């Protein structure tokens, strides 16, 4: 964008804030019309912040404290249906309590944006991260991305609105972040001006699908066996189209905010010439990158690949990035009880995506950091070593008490 010569002018300030606060700032700058809250740790602090923005007159929106997550997400969905930009969020079992509303928001193709502060599912109670909650929606038509820094959370929220609301997409978007590690840890975040955000994010319009007396449509009538397949295929095609829109959105985001995102979907560290690569999502990136640099210093040909967008899934991008890699280890911060090969959830997606490669890498799964348990540098180092060793079992629980 040529009109923005001085990059500094697009930013208003740089502040220290947590991941949830960064999302709240993005929601404020997106000028949302409606947001609905219900408390559950650790996502809640985004609503604490937004309600304070509202109280201080920094945000002009309708704010509803719902009677439960099911209502909270129904409120978001129906606000979106009348043409209002809306925001909701939840964590763990709260997200699951809303699951019915979450699914229909996707099948109704409404671009609601939600924050998922990843939290272990009950029982027993635990506040710490497990990514099973957000992963529950990977197949139903939500766009799904993970942030690992507060700045990335801010950027991805704005980009998420842009992609979700694109007329070629119109799908809900969930920004996920590891509970505790990102929801409550503070990073420096550059906050752009409202004008700059407006350049990037056009006003929300649902077009001829908006529910308004001037547009008397019927939305989601009963179809039974006659039309469900065609509608599912339409949803699927929208998800595929989202890939192109995501590239476009990041290109413009980089131009306006000088953001420097290379590939929107994945972030590589020394993957290009690596023999052994670990793949992970969310806050594990910090420790994994640190260990990758250490090992490189020791002459080891290792790399780390951080996944940002999980849906749409970047199959081609992964194949390209991993084309010369011999060993791939997947860090699953989630569990999948008694699944194929007893591996956890994301392992199957990666393995399936890479299966048709001519020289597909050997792959192993690491189940680590469940319930918020810290993944240490020593453990990442161990995972690299195990990934390289040919006789490592397919699935490995890391950091488990004996």
């Amino acid at each position: 964008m040529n009109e923005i010569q001085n990059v500094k002018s697009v930013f208003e300030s740089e502040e220290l804030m947590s991941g949830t606060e960064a999302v709240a700032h993005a929601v404020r700058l997106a000028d949302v019309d409606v947001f609905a809250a219900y408390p559950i740790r650790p996502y809640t602090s985004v609503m604490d912040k937004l309600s304070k923005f509202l109280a201080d007159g920094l945000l002009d929106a309708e704010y509803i404290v719902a009677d439960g997550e099911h209502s909270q997400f129904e409120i978001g969905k129906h606000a979106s249906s009348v043409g209002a930009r809306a925001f909701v969020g939840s964590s763990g079992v709260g997200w699951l309590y809303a699951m019915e509303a979450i699914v229909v928001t996707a099948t109704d193709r409404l671009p609601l944006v939600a924050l998922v502060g990843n939290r272990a599912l009950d029982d027993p109670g635990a506040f710490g991260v497990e990514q099973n909650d957000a992963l529950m929606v990977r197949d139903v038509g939500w766009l799904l991305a993970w942030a690992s820094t507060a700045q990335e959370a801010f950027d991805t929220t704005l980009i998420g609105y842009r992609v979700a609301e694109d007329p070629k997409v119109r799908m809900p978007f969930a920004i996920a972040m590891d509970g505790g590690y990102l929801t409550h840890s503070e990073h420096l975040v550059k906050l752009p001006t409202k004008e700059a955000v407006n350049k990037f994010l056009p006003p929300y319009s649902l077009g001829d699908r908006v529910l308004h007396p001037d547009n008397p449509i019927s939305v989601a009538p009963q179809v039974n066996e006659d039309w469900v397949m065609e509608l599912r295929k339409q949803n699927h095609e929208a998800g595929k189209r989202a890939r192109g829109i995501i590239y476009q959105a990041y290109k413009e985001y980089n131009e306006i905010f000088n953001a420097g995102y290379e590939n929107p979907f994945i972030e590589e560290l020394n993957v290009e010439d690596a023999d052994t690569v670990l793949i992970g999502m969310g806050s594990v990136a910090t420790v994994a990158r640190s260990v990758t640099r250490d090992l490189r210093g020791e002459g080891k040909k290792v790399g780390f690949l951080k996944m940002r967008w999980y849906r749409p899934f970047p199959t081609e991008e992964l194949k390209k990035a991993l084309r010369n890699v011999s060993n791939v280890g997947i860090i699953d911060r989630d569990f999948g009880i008694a699944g194929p090969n007893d591996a956890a959830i994301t392992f199957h997606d990666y393995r399936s995506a890479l299966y048709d490669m001519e020289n597909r890498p050997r792959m192993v799964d690491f189940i680590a950091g469940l319930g918020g348990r810290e993944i240490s540098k020593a453990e990442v180092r161990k995972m690299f070593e195990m990934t390289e060793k040919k006789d490592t079992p397919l699935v490995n629980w890391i950091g488990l008490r004996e």
Partner: protein
Amino acid sequence: MVKEVEELKDVKLYKGVHSIDLPEYYTSGHRTCQGCESALVMRDFAKAAGPRTVVTGATGCMYVANTSYMTTPWLIPWMHTQLAGGGASAVGMAAGIRALRRKGKIKDEKINVINFSGDLGAGDAGLGGLSGAMQSDYDLLVIVYDNESAANTDIQASGLTTYGAQTTFSPVGKVHRIMHKRWKKNLAPMIAVGHPNVKYVATAVATFPPMDYMNKVKKALAIGGPTMIHTLDPCPKGWDYHPRYSHDLGELAVKTGIFPVYEIIKGKVVYTYDLRGKKREPVRSYLEKQGRFAHFIDEDYEYIQSKVDEMWEEWEIPGVVPFSSGLEVEK
């Protein structure tokens, strides 16, 4: 009472059938049963509300039977919401519309926001959401159309089904004659008493007294804030009677006193068919016309009659508030 309420001064109520608006906003295309009174509840609220209205319908027979893909009966915008999503859907629409009007993103005009939910949705699974909506300050109306069962799922009992009714969840057996032993929830007072900011709550039967229901819709929409109307809808399929008797059964439900019709306007109860101190038709005349009570013996009729009598003769507000006078306070 209506004349005394500031918000209702300008409401043009229907007076006589010739005053009823001719345009229809719920027309052909639905596939409801012959004699379906819930369909009439739909048609009449759409007529009374008029075209500047948005509607959500919760899952239920009035979703499944009403709106088949590409044959919608709705001439006003309509959207599906989940079984327990009725109240929240209305809040979402009302909040969105208020924000968009305030921010100049749509024309600043009054748009009626209406949700209809069945007895299973609003009375059971969606009761929390209904309560949440009634606690809000949005202008919205929730119509609870109550045909006393999950009428599109094979007629299963809900929390609002009449005591003793035979449903597929409460079949008559060799050992147990009465399987459904829950007394019908008193939904309208529960909403009115528990949500003191609600200015209008009513009960109604679509056909009796004539125009009563449509006028209640008009009042609910005019008074502002969250409002609720609970209608009792005779259902030929679920209640097991010939479709031609739907109106008669509705009228009998009112005249026997088993379903009192009234409105609670800003905390005041106004009976729209007042049976206080009057002779009521025997409840048996309403029950014995329905196949779902065919297994009843005298003691069942007597039991229900005694409960209805108690409701009218011993409650603090007859037929409405389930306390008898002289409620004791611990000393």
